[in-house]
């Protein structure tokens, strides 16, 4: 993380009515902004929206800069600031930021990045504010700073029995310089950080009051439903809207473009007084598409191409030692091929957006999104606006999982609102959401592993064959280079294998692709950690011992994680007949997690008896949230392992809704036991994603242990093993 302390500066403004104290560490330049503002203007601040805001007559507001997608940032991010200010969450108002320049380019939710990149940065924001309030009090009372303390939103001077509220001190504090290196609180004194603090959004999500993107309305708005080409890559030829316009409530039928990555797909939108009328109108549309030959595309045939491409050498992702010679000289060689599917994100809140073009070139957007900063800036370019003329109201996201990193659905609404001359709310149907992508791509993997005469791993190769998420986003993608996004984690595992050469083979694809919770690690961990298991079996060594034997050299987070898994799962304790247990771990950019899964043979299939999960964090902000995230990651990973996945035939997505694109239901969820490794320190790993990748390989390794059957392709039918 970049240190921003030395680049701080002040900004002070006076105002006509009322003065407040605002401190923020923000901006792409990492500047601290400290200013007095007219609080009556706060609903529409003049180019500055700070992290902390103290109204002398009222509330203390702290901004959450990371969209809340279920991962708990609405609690955790403001807590970083509130902790240093000795405030509890019931003493503050939390507001969601909307991509304002002053709050920084990292206003997004993705990559499990929120806490690991903000932990110290936001604590310093709070600590600086506290120091200024304390200094203001000490100057007012003419007492030494060291004799002042803070508690419950007040500065106290115990010797003279004086105290003042932050509100009373705000104006004086606002005139002070922001301390360059504010002293951070001793973690032993923490009241919020590291504690299972209740999330303030939970009551709102238990009584229907939480406002998601789909819930927002403004006067005079129209509802929209959009028909897009059912075949990926098709073009709009013509449409007849006569029948659609006869549906009562339908007002307009107009086109819009869906911008996703390098693609622009045209659609026909029906705008109506209410959503149901828009959907009925849409059904009555007559549209002619030019499928451009894409109607012959078959994912089954494409998979066969991937198998053929596996024969190519590919480009080198990572190499060490002399793989070729070590491989050819090795007494024991092993090869295997693994396959995984495309999958959808399928958050329960379908994509939606409300857009309103206001007079004077002002664009206002209400939506569930993971990327407000990016929307403000990329939309400014696309629509010829200044970023400050775009206001993004980030609502609670009804699930993100990577889908809402892509604002294609926001583009549609923005274009419709401009054309219609009215605010337009666009809501995708579940069928739209399931069939239009973007999807997490499949990866196919070809492995070579060799053991020496002592059954020690001596050479290893993981070759990934896949289409590319980056290629979907970037028209200038360079196919001749390796693609770190598609080889994620395969060269980052801590295992000490002396000779390694990992490769990537690119495959073209015309269907929009996307990051997905834990991205490519979700497929590569499955193949990689399953193959490691195959090597262990070949070596005749217990899979846990085999992994630990490759971590002998030095202490590592991975070693500690596996040792923890071994202990909590009673790894060495025999299981009942017909049971099996499997282990897997995965380290990648977002963090490190591991699972031990226990299964039993049940009739024709397999029952998942128990999942043990360990996540390694370094430092934890809310252990209860972390536990919930890991539970959820395990559930999502089981879905990805055993449910259908996306198929495309005749150019169209075969699946359409939850009946044929299933996600795990309650009776299918096994007991999940989560353990957190958090031994302190500033080297913090992510929470949202690392719980996911190790599940599929641990499950399949357990199935092998129970049945002797090696699963090399996802998804698989758990009821028929």
């Amino acid at each position, binding site marked *: 993380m970049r240190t921003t302390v030395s680049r701080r500066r002040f900004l002070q403004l006076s105002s006509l009515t009322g003065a407040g104290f605002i401190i923020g560490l923000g901006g792409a330049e990492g500047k601290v902004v400290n200013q007095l503002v007219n609080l009556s203007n706060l609903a529409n601040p003049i180019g500055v929206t700070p992290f902390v805001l103290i109204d002398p007559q009222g509330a203390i507001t702290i901004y959450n800069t990371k969209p809340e997608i279920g991962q708990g940032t609405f609690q955790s991010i403001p807590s970083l600031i509130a902790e240093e200010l000795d405030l509890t969450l019931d003493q503050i108002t939390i507001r969601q930021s909307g991509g304002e320049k002053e709050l920084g380019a990292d206003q997004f939710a993705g990559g499990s990045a929120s806490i690991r990149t903000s932990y110290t940065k936001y604590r310093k924001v709070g600590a600086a504010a506290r120091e200024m309030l304390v200094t203001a009090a000490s100057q007012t009372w003419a007492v030494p700073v060291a004799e002042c303390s803070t508690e419950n939103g007040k500065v106290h001077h115990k010797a003279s029995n004086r105290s003042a509220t932050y509100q009373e001190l705000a104006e004086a504090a606002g005139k002070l310089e922001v301390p360059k290196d504010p002293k951070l609180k001793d973690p032993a004194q923490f009241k919020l950080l590291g504690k299972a603090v209740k999330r303030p959004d939970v*009551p709102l999500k238990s009584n229907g009051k939480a406002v998601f993107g789909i819930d927002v309305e403004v006067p005079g708005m129209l509802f929209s439903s959009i028909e897009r080409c059912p075949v990926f890559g098709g073009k709009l030829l013509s449409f007849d809207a006569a029948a659609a316009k006869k549906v009562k409530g339908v007002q307009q039928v107009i086109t819009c473009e869906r911008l996703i990555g390098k693609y622009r797909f045209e659609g026909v939108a029906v705008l109506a007084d209410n959503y149901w009328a828009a959907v009925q109108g849409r059904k009555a549309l007559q549209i002619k598409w030019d499928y451009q030959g894409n109607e012959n595309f078959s994912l089954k045939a494409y998979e066969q191409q991937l198998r053929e491409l596996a024969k190519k050498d590919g480009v080198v992702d990572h190499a060490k030692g002399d793989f070729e010679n070590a491989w050819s000289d090795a007494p024991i060689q092993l090869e295997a091929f693994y396959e995984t599917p495309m999958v959808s994100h399928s958050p329960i809140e379908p994509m939606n957006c409300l857009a309103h073009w206001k007079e004077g070139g002002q664009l206002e957007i209400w939506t569930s999104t993971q990327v407000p900063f990016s929307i403000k800036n990329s939309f400014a370019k696309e629509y010829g606006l200044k970023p400050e003329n775009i206001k993004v109201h980030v609502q*609670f996201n009804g699930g993100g999982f990577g889908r809402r990193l892509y604002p294609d659905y926001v583009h549609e609404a923005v274009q419709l609102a401009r054309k219609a001359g009215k605010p337009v709310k666009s809501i995708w149907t*579940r069928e739209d959401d399931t069939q239009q992508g973007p999807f997490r791509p499949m990866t196919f993997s070809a492995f070579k592993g060799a053991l020496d005469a002592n059954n020690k791993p001596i050479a290893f190769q993981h070759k990934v064959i896949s289409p590319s998420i980056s290629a979907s986003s970037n028209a200038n993608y360079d196919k001749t280079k390796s693609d770190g996004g598609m080889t994620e984690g395969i060269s980052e595992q801590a295992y000490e294998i002396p000779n390694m050469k990992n490769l990537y083979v690119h495959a073209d694809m015309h269907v929009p692709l996307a990051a997905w919770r834990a991205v490519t690690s979700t497929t590569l961990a499955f193949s990689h950690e399953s193959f490691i298991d195959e090597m262990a079996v070949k070596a005749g060594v217990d899979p846990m011992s085999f992994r630990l034997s490759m971590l002998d050299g030095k202490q590592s987070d991975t070693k500690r994680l596996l040792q923890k898994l071994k202990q909590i799962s009673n790894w060495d304790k025999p299981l009942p007949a017909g049971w099996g247990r499997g282990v897997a771990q995965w380290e990648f950019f977002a963090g490190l997690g591991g699972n031990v899964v226990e299964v039993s043979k049940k009739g024709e299939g397999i029952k998942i008896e128990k999942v043990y999960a360990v996540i390694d964090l370094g430092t934890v902000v809310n252990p209860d949230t972390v536990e919930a995230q890991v539970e959820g990651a395990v559930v999502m990973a089981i879905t990805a392992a055993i449910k259908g996945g996306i198929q495309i035939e005749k150019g169209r997505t075969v699946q359409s809704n939850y009946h044929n694109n299933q996600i795990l239901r309650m009776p299918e969820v096994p007991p999940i036991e989560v353990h957190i490794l958090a031994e302190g320190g500033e080297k913090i790993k992510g929470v949202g994603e690392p719980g996911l990748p190790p599940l599929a390989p641990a499950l399949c390794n357990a199935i092998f242990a129970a049945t002797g059957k090696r699963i090399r392709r996802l998804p698989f039918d758990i009821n028929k093993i």
Partner: protein
Amino acid sequence: MAAITLTVNNKQFKIDVDPQMPLLWAIRDFVGLKGTKFGCGMAQCGACTVLMDGNPIRSCSTQVSVAANKKISTIEGLSENVEHPVQQAWIELQVPQCGYCQSGQIMTTVALLKKNPDPTDEQIDSALQGNLCRCGTYPRIRKAVHRAAELMKSKPF
């Protein structure tokens, strides 16, 4: 179009809608209560669950005309200040993540506990298997249903 009177949370609403419109959109867009959610439109996910005469139904797949003269209960009608035992259990166990499916989960649970004040895990699974949660809050929902059952014994609602 037809004039339909809906009774939602013991209040009457006169609305003029296509009688085939799903109750979900009548509740959201005409009655103006947004706590009931759209997820799938074909009774697959349960996000739209409301109670009709006390029974959980999928409002996305129930025509509004069917709901006339019936008592509809939505999440907003459960309590004034989140004090319903099911809501209290949800908060105590910090069930929601994104929260989008939780109105449906809670309404299904309310109906379950009315009929079966002390359900087993299997009975909970059976009652809630029609309510999807993409965040994977299922383990906590199960615990929270047990906790709500416990709370309701001391504080019937």
